[in-house]
């Protein structure tokens, strides 16, 4: 019997530890059953976009107003998937290009007006801090698909009838449609004004091979459901 004494004590100790771990009240539950798993928000955005024009060295920024909506599904109280759709007003960049004219000593300076309208659909994962509080910071990352429509108006300088180059040009316009995808990271917060309604604000940066491609500051209102 004596040889089993340590084993019996060990089993007793382990059983006690297990019982202790199962004892109710060792932790706290801050998320009630039936907590909404979905949330949705509408937002307005200040969006800065960067473009590299073929005719120029370096990058150009333009800013536009944007609006859209985001829907999220909470897998846990800290992790959720988000789907976002946004579209912008028209942003504008002017560029100047020196076009050599055959036989003329000076080039022709052409002004181009680039008008951009950008629509994005994005999907990503967000990590939300705290549980069931009035203020939830979050960080997130994902991929956005970008549809960009660029309307280019080319204006030629007026020519004097006595200009030896004798060129007569009419303004040209063309439209290009481009699609691409780019990763983004975001950081912001949800501040609740009632149990389910919240104000949401975040800063989001999108990246391309040249570095930061877009910077957005979004503010909106939403609801859990």
């Amino acid at each position, binding site marked *: 019997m*004596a*040889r089993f*004494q*340590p084993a019996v*004590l*060990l089993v007793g*100790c382990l059983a*006690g530890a297990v019982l202790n771990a199962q*004892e*109710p*009240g*060792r*932790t*706290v*539950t*801050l*998320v*009630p059953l039936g*907590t909404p798993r979905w949330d949705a928000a509408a937002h*307005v955005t*200040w*969006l800065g976009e960067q473009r590299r024009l073929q005719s120029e060295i370096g990058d150009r920024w*333009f*800013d*536009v*107003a944007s609006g859209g909506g985001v829907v999220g599904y909470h897998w846990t109280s800290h992790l959720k998937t988000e789907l976002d759709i946004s579209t912008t*007003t*028209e*942003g*504008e960049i002017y560029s100047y290009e020196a076009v050599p004219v055959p036989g003329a000593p000076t080039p022709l300076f052409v002004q181009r007006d680039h008008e951009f309208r950008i629509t994005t659909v994005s999907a990503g994962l967000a990590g939300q801090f705290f*549980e*069931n*509080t*009035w203020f939830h910071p979050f960080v997130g990352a994902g991929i956005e698909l970008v549809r960009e429509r660029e309307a280019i108006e080319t204006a030629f300088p007026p020519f004097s009838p006595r200009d030896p180059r004798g060129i007569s040009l009419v303004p040209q316009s063309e439209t290009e449609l481009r699609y691409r995808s780019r990763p983004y990271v975001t950081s912001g917060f949800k*501040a*609740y004004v009632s*149990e389910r309604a919240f*104000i949401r*604000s975040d800063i989001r940066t999108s990246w391309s091979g040249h570095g930061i491609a877009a910077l957005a*500051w979004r*503010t909106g209102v939403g609801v859990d459901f």
Partner: protein
Amino acid sequence: MSARIRVLSTTLLITLISLQSITAQTTTEIWRGFAERMAVGTELNVRLDDGHRFRATLVSAQHDAVLLQPKTRIPVPVQAISYQSIVAMEPRKAGHGVGKAVAIGVATGVATFFGVMALLVAAVGD
């Protein structure tokens, strides 16, 4: 030789169990005494040994657990928290909420102002 090992291991186990029991007993008594001296309705900052930190209102101090109503956005049921799992528990200081409310108000106002200005600049720029 084997008898000596058995005696030593038995003694060691008994000592460990006793120490654990004494520590748990002491923790339980300390927090029970603290909770019993607090007025019902006191707002507390609580930290548990599993890392949870939360604010709660004291509902009742029982023999083996303290009843707390966590202060959450969506209400949760009153919860019995065993004294052994409590690492820290202290009453919240009065007046703390006013400063925080003012700070939140100012921050929200400033953020809204700059947000509206940024949108106006973006819209006019078009």
